[in-house]
């Protein structure tokens, strides 16, 4: 394993060859752009639209391949392939949108339909292309699960530049998009073109999806747009926090995954990048200070302990830990302990007299009741 570890270190410090270095940097740029777009897609609840785009690119890829061959182009002609991919990808998204708007199908059903049917059409076309005499269509299959190693340095550079341009465009639209995500009515009232902004956001999503096809493959490319944003969401609830964390996670995860894939032969590129991002996501899920699983478990345990301690104090008894909270000293409750018991009794009263005012978000019996609940209790004096 030390050999593999050394290899990874080499790759991470750009010592594993020019090509590898460029591919890794390109992946990082892509990850950054995907993280940025993904943050807004998440906040607009449109994350899965990118899945429809990703799967819908397959028929476009195959058709572009055929067209390029018919026009006599040699080799792979990446820009042509990506143009075809973008075309059907956007068509797929438009089909999902049309189904949602014009029929009574729900948006999730529309996305699932567009995603799977376009993908299937691509598979059918692929099976046809495989019977044609012109070789090298094996390259097409690399778009399904990705193969960043097949990128030349020039191609990787081109993709990186495009990704950074997309990120730049996103930054230019930062404030209107932010307003759109958090207060759509205000945005409309100020005259922002809501439909246009949505279209721009989805368009950027489609662009980043297409750019990611070669490295991560069309099945997994949606992960680039979702994982960094979801991970960021565990750490922050402000737009700037979510956005920049998402950009950072995307860049870092993609960089790490590309490095790992370049040195371990048995690590397919798309899967490696997604697993690296998945590690970031899992770490956030576990360890984030307010929303993580560990923090939540600690909070619950503490709240339960405090309720039991307050109950005991109420009955005049001691309880292990009451001293730690500062609620009891020398066998008698302190002022803070008395306050804790008073809060608990207010909750009991609220449950009995005004249960509809019980707040769902607070810790039962521990947190102070909000003003509305107290006012209601005051009016309904026993």
């Amino acid at each position, binding site marked *: 394993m030390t050999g593999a570890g050394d290899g990874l270190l080499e790759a991470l410090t750009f010592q594993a060859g020019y090509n590898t270095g460029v591919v890794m940097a390109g992946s990082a740029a892509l990850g950054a752009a995907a993280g940025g777009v993904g943050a807004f897609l*998440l906040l607009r*609840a449109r*994350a*899965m639209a990118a*899945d429809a785009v990703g*799967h819908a690119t397959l028929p476009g890829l195959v058709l572009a391949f055929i067209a390029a061959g018919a026009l006599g182009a040699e080799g792979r002609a990446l820009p042509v392939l990506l143009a075809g991919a973008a075309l059907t990808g956007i068509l797929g998204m438009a089909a999902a949108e049309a*189904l949602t*708007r*014009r*029929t*009574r*199908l*729900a948006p*999730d*059903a529309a*996305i*699932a*339909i567009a*995603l*799977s*049917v376009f*993908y*299937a*059409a*691509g*598979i*059918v076309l*692929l*099976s*046809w292309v495989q*019977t044609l005499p012109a070789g090298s269509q094996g390259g097409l299959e690399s778009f*399904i*699960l990705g193969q960043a190693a097949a990128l030349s340095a020039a191609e990787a550079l081109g993709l990186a530049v495009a990704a950074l341009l997309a990120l730049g465009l996103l930054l230019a639209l930062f404030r209107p998009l932010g307003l759109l995500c958090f207060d759509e009515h205000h945005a409309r009232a100020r005259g922002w073109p809501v439909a246009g902004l949505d279209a721009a956001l989805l368009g950027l999503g489609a662009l980043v999806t297409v750019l990611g096809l070669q490295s991560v493959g069309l*099945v*997994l490319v*949606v*992960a680039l747009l*979702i*994982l960094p*944003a*979801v991970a960021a*969401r*565990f750490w922050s609830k402000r737009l700037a926090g979510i956005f920049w964390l998402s950009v950072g996670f995307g860049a870092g995860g993609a960089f790490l995954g590309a490095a790992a894939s370049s040195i371990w032969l*048995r*690590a*397919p590129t*798309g*899967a*490696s990048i*997604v*697993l690296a*991002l*998945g590690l970031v*996501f*899992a770490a956030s*899920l576990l360890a984030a200070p307010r*929303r*993580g*699983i560990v923090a*939540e478990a600690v909070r619950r345990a503490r709240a339960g302990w405090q309720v039991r301690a307050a109950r005991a104090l109420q009955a005049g008894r001691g309880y292990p830990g009451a001293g730690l909270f500062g609620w009891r000293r020398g066998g008698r409750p302190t002022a803070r302990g008395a306050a804790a018991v008073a809060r608990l009794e207010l909750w009991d009263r609220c449950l009995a007299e005004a249960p509809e005012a019980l707040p769902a978000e607070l810790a039962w019996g521990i947190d102070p009741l909000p003003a509305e609940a107290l006012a209601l209790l005051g009016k309904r004096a026993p």
Partner: protein
Amino acid sequence: MSLFWQVDFPALLAAGLASGLCALLGNFLVLRRESLLGDAIAHAVLPGIVGGFMLAGALAASAMLAGALAAALIAAGAIQVVRRLGRIEPGAAMGAVFTVMFAAGVFMLEQAAARNLHIDADCVLYGQLEDILWLDAPDISALPREVWTLAGVFAAAAAAVLLLAKEIRLAVFDPAFAAALGFRPGLIHLGLVLFVAAAAIASFEAVGSILVIAMLICPPAAARLMTDNYRTQILLSIALGTGSAFAGYGLAGFAPALLGASWSLNAAGCIAVVSGLAVAAAALFGPRRLSFASAAASLGRG
């Protein structure tokens, strides 16, 4: 025995059973607005399938089924945790969980290939109907394993739906009321997740796990646009599903022949495309295609 019975018949049987099974289960996903859950489970079972395969050392159906069910449960649980703790919308929560699990599955496929355990990514992505053969026709006991698995899961699903028809209907349309009455809509939801996972694994050798999504959602969606009646929708969706299977298979095999070619198209893909065309037709001409809002709007205009 003629080539039809040895080659086409078992494939048609497998495709028909897979499509009918997925269509049946998909109704409950579509009605509960959980179509993407079908997408999520179809992807998430991959590590379970490969894991079961690697542990059992061969295409042992029970090991892969157990692995798939375990993976589906893990996915469903993880999705709930992500939604609740992170306050994240359902689609993104599903996307986060299933992409990581699918990537893990792809990674494991590579490791399995390295140890010469051969399970094809192709099989998972677009199925291999061509490999489902009945060489010893007409010996019924010699029907291919995939057909038996599909028939078994179909029978179990049909039995579950029939036995629990009222509870399922209640849980689908008004889970809060069902809970208030003392039923357990959560258990029914869990059962649905497990059955979808079983259907995905039973079907993946026939139509591939990604095409399972098409068969889960397209026939019920098309049926939904054609009728308001719950039972009619379910029966119609099964009919549309199996119909798409036969039509798609025929298209894949015989359309190229009509044009003078000797090869055939990917059958699973053709089946999914036909079901997609059914949705398109229903969206354009179905008698119940309009939402309440757009129907009201068109009444106001007309």
